[in-house]
Every structure is written in C-alpha cells, then in structure tokens.
C-alpha cells in the first residue's frame, strides 16, 4: 500500500488549491453566493479549461481517464473552499449515469458537453416525503406512440435551478421497474420551484405536467436502473465525503488560528487546556475521516454489495465527525461564529447539509449494518 500521491496527483491538488485560494476566498464566496445562480459561472468555465470536468470521464468524450482518487483530491479542495458549483451533480453523479447507460447517442453528446463545460446536469430522483428510499412512485411515464408523457413531482432536486438537463427517474406505466430519462430543463410542462439550501447551494421541486419526452431520451429501463443509480450515487456520496474532509480540515485550522489570537482573561484562549482538548478531539475526527475516505476509495470499483457497504461506512463515520467538528468549531469560536460574516458557521452549514444529502447517517448505518451483520 502507498497512500502518498503521485506527482501528477500532487500537481492536481496544488493547482486546485492555488486556483481556489485566488478565486474562492471567503468574501468572494459570499459575493458569489448572494446572487443567482448561487455559484460562479466564470469558475465553472475555468474548471472546464483546467480539465477538471474531464476527470474520470471516458476518453471518447474528450475525458481524462483516471481513477476516482483524482476526483476525490479535487473534491477535498472544493470542500476546503466551500465551492458552490454543481460539480458533483454534473460531473460525478449524472456523468456516471450517462457513461454507463445504454443510450449511446445521449452518452456521447452529453458527456462531451460536460467535459467542455457546456452543460450542467441534475438528478431528479427524490420524491416528496420519500426520504432516502426514493423508488419512483409518483412520477409516471406513460407511453404515447414511440414517446412518453411524464406526470408527477420530484422534490429537493439538488442543483436543479441551474441545470440545463435533468435525469429523471420514473415509473413506466404498467411495468415493475423504473426508467431514466434525460429531459431538457426548459421542456414545456416542466415546472421548477427553486429555493436555497442551508449550505448555500440551490435546489428545486420539479413538477411534470404532461411533459413530452421522445423515446431517444430514455437512458435506461428495467432491472439495470437500480444498480445504475446506486453506483452513481455511491460515487457522488464518496465525492461529498472528500468535500466534507476538506471542509473539516479547513475549519479545524481556522479554529486553531483563532485560539491563538483571541485573548480573554489576559491570555490567548488556546492556553486553556479545556479548549486544547477540544481541538485535539476535532483533530482525531479528521484523521479518522481521511482514513475512512481512503477505505471507500479502495472499494469504489468493488462489486455492488461491498462497494455500497464501504461507501456507507465512509458516509456514516464522516457524518459523525462532521457533526462534532462543525459544532465544536462554533463553540470554540464563541458568538463570532454565529454570524454570517464569519467563515466558521458556513463550514458548519456545509457539514450539516453533507450529512443529509444522499442518505443521512442513520440510513447509511442501516445499509452498512445489513452488510456487516452477514
């Protein structure tokens, strides 16, 4: 085993860190977040130019074939900067579904567009009140000649407001298994109610009122759909674990610096052992998070059951760490961290959102337990 980065990987990390330091300082991020679309289109274009949107995409789409480790490295830096661009939705989650779906034409054209930074994508899978066990039940696709008509609601669709296309899961009328469709976000009959989420990103409830979808937009159907979704969601989850790790490392550093500079009772508060121990506990959590991320990365291409179990372990451990690190960061800062004008609270919000996206700690613990118990 070798946990050290290769020279190329090191360069990727250094490049990402430098770019984000220059373009994503805290004040810059606040300004970006304050206006629609809630992220920086300029940065997005730069990501395309820097080749970041090509990471892990297939070569025939102009991608840069590499392991998932590269994606994780980049995501760690995104987390450090609390970057707001819909990278995971587009370049990890939806791109992976497209890559593995049976629709050759959609795969080629869309993935090329992803790599070039020309489209943003979102997965519309979760349904109102469906928590994390979304099986498409309310959204129904009815056959109409060769084409389909979609009806129903999706809820809490991450990054939907700025997406050009959505990948939508739907129940095929009269059939057991769901299907996946690629739908233009501007399609007639598609309604989007957008709102901000706690971490500064945007989501939407998406309504389908007799939305016409041509047969060529069907990405997959039948029993493969579940595995297709699961695999892509696992990778997206792991990408978010890497982001959470970066965010945690960053906020621990911020807290350490604050403890050195904040003076109360005539001395830096970092001299109080009670606070030193808290900081040490945060450090322990971050160490464990990095380890479980690596464990997840080692299994990202394993067979389905094992892959999912390891991703769940990673999500669960990281979610716990995120709660501890995020809340302690606020506590150690005192009231300054309760303001929107200071970074610590934004890390807390990001880490909180992390826990609730793609299955919360309980959901992943359950999924891991089903594996661990046998």
């Amino acid at each position, binding site marked *: 085993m070798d946990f050290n980065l290769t020279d190329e990987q090191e360069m990727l990390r250094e490049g990402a860190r430098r770019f984000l330091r220059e373009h994503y300082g805290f004040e810059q991020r606040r300004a970006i977040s304050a206006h629609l679309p809630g992220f920086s289109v300029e940065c997005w274009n730069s990501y395309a130019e820097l080749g970041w949107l090509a990471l892990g995409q297939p070569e025939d789409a102009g991608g840069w074939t590499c392991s998932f480790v590269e994606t994780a490295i980049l995501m760690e830096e995104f987390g450090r900067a609390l970057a707001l661009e819909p990278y995971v939705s587009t370049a990890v989650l939806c791109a992976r579904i497209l890559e593995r779906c049976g629709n050759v034409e959609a795969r080629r054209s869309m993935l090329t567009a992803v790599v070039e930074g020309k489209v943003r994508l979102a997965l519309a899978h979760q349904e109102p*009140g469906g928590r994390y066990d979304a099986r498409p039940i309310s959204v129904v696709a009815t056959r109409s000649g060769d084409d389909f008509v979609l009806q129903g*609601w999706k809820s*809490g669709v991450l990054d939907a407001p700025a997406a050009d296309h959505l990948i939508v899961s739907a129940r095929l009328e009269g059939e057991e298994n769901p299907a996946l469709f690629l739908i233009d976000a501007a399609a007639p009959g598609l309604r989007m109610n957008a709102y901000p989420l*706690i971490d500064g990103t945007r989501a939407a409830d998406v309504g389908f009122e007799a939305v016409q979808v041509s047969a060529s937009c069907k990405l997959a159907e039948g029993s493969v759909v579940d595995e297709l979704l699961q695999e892509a969601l696992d990778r997206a989850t792991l990408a978010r674990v890497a982001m959470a790790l970066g965010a945690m490392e960053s906020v621990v550093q911020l807290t350490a610096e604050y403890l050195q500079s904040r003076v*109360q009772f005539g001395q830096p508060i970092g001299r*109080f052992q009670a606070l030193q121990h808290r900081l040490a506990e945060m450090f322990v959590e971050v160490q464990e998070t990095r380890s479980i991320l690596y464990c997840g990365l080692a299994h990202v291409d394993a067979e389905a059951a094992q892959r999912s179990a390891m991703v769940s372990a990673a999500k669960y451990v990281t979610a716990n760490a995120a709660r501890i690190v995020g809340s302690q960061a606020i506590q150690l800062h005192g009231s300054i961290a*309760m303001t*929107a004008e200071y970074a610590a609270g934004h890390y807390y919000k990001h880490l909180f959102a992390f826990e*609730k996206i793609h299955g*919360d700690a309980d959901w992943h613990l359950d999924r891991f337990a089903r594996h661990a118990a046998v």
Partner: protein
Amino acid sequence: MHFEPNSGDGAFRAEVREFIRQHLPPDMARRSYICSQPPDIEDFRRWQGILHDRGWGAPHWPLEYGGTDWTAMQRHIFMEEIYRADAIDYGWQGTHMIGPVLIAFGSQAQKKRFLPPMLRGEEIWCQGFSEPNAGSDLASLRTRAELVGDEWVIHGQKIWTSDASEADWGFFLVRTDPEAKPQRGISMLLVPMNAAGIRIRPIEALNGGRDLNEVFLDGVRVPCENLVGEPGKGWTYAKYLLEKERTASAYLYRNKRELEKAKQIARAEHTAGMRLIDTPEFARKIARVEADLLALEWSVLRILAGEKNLHDADAVVSALKIRGSEMQQRVAELQLDALGPRALRVFDQQDRSAEVIEGTPLWPSYVPGRLGQFLYARAATLYGGTREVQKNIIARRAFGL
C-alpha cells in the same frame, strides 16, 4: 420525601390552560410555533399586554409590584402551559432580568418609571454587557462613563446585544472607575436606545436573523438618576440578574415543547412505508432524548421544591445551564433528523407558509422554521455564560478547584 403534587395544582393548570385557549390569537401561536426564539417583537408586546390584563404580567415578581403570589410549582405549571400552547415566553431582558434588579436595588423613582410599562409590554429592553474584547471575560469591559455635571457621558462599544434595534431601553455595564479593580469599577446604567450618540448595527446571524447587534456609544448622555443602585456595584447587580431565575437556564419548557414537535414530525414522516416514529431506530433516538429530558425536569423540580443540595447553589445552576442548553441542541437536531432531506431548505423570514401543491404536501406545515431554530440553538451553549465557563464555575464552586 413525598412525590405527590399539591391538590390544587390540577385546578390551577386547568385555569391557565383555559385562559390561554381563549386569549392566544391562533396566528400568533402559529408564528411562535415556527420561530419560538426569539419571538416576534410585536407579538411579544401584544401577548404581554394580554397577560398583564389578567394580572399575570410577571408571575415571579412580588405582588406589590404587579406580580403574583404563586408557589414555585404554580409558576412551573404556568410556564409549561405557555409553551405547550405555543404562547410567548416573557421578555428575558425585561421582566426576567432588569425587572428583579430594579425591584431589589432600584430607586423608588426608577421602580415607578420603569416597572409598569415593562409589565404592560410597552417598553422593550435590551442587555448591553458583552464587548468585542469582553465576552467570557466580562470584567475586562472598556465602555466608560464619566459624570459631567449631573449627567453620565458614555463612550464605547457593545456587541451581541439582542434586540437592540427594537428595544426602547437598555441596561448597560460601563466602567465608571478606571482606578478600581476590574470588577469594582463597573456600574449599571439605564439608557434610552434613541439617545443621541447611539448607533446600532444589526449583525446578520447564521440563520438569517437580525436580532443581534453592535451598539456604538459616542458621547451618549443620560441623567445621573439613571444609575442603578450605587456606582461601582454594577458587577454585583449583573451577577444577581444572571442568577435570578435559577431554573430558567434549564430551558425546560422550551425543551419539552420542542421534543413534542420532534415527535409530531416523526409521526407524520414516513420511511420505507412506515411511520418514522414506529421504526425501532428512530424510536430509540427519541427515547434517549426523552429520558435525559426527564432527568433535567426532575433536577428543576428539586430546585423548585427547595431541596437542600449538598453542593453550592451556583454549581447546581451551572449544571442546569449546561444540560439545558445541550438539550436544546439535541432536541433541535432530533427535529431535523426527523425531517430528513426536507431539513435542508431555507425558508426566508417572509416565506414561512408551507407549500401544498395540487394535493401533494411537498412542504408540510411543520417544516418551516425548524432549520432556523436549529442554527440558533448553537448559541445556547454560548450566551448567558459559555459551556466552558459554566464548567469552570462547577469546578470552582463545587470542588474548590
């Protein structure tokens, strides 16, 4: 020992419950359900007036100042009913904090001038203690006041002043004797918030709220009779005020009500075809919080019943504060865990109504407000003395360390 409540308590509870049922406007209760902390100021004014008309404007004050002669247990029951109905708690800074201080140490003129409008909810108060460099180390505060003729002239800066931009009056700790030892040179002044020389800058909080403020005092003048008690005794009064309502720091009633809300959500939300509350995992999660809350409730009851505790009273109160503030965070977390992915949506201050689209309850009425309250709850272990400061107090007062 005996554990039976007094015989009249049941009837008292029924009377309180009936009064609230008749007088609490439903729209006010809804607003308070959504965002119980801090309450809407207009609602607070109105509700305080309603309670005052019934003679319940400040149950914990002596009868002669407009309070009641209720027993501690009756006050406990009263607060339970207030929260159970999503009514509004008393203004902390007014009837809970400065009111009792004025009753104990204020001049006759101050009592006459300030207590009646406080009771009626006509004047809102804020507490100007903390400063940028005097948080936990409050005694290092630097805002100073100098007697010039028969006026105090104040210079300095406060921060984290809750409600400062809506308050009519503030009670400020200021340094009046730079020569004296840090705690001895501090005095307490009553300051009208519209006085010339006051500038207030709202601070945007993590949950979007704007109830926190910076307050700049630049040559603010108040008459010498606005000094509370004696000069140099401000620290004593501040301690008295912070310790006055000893059981309040358990946030017991809020915690009980918020736990109810969490259960309500868990009954309404479904997972894998089951009510969330019926899944063993979530039931256990609720049970853990509920059991700890029961312990906290009985800690409060022990104090209310006047138990002679082995340990120093300050240490016991600090234990309540530590546990009570942590419970606020845990209960809020429980609510958001029950909400699952719905927990992530930010509802802004205006857009608090839930959306029901074409019969699909995309956003049930229990969702708005929970996230904001959850974020606010992080402050519970900071304000009123941080958790670490409370632990220091316990170590010192209970064990002499």
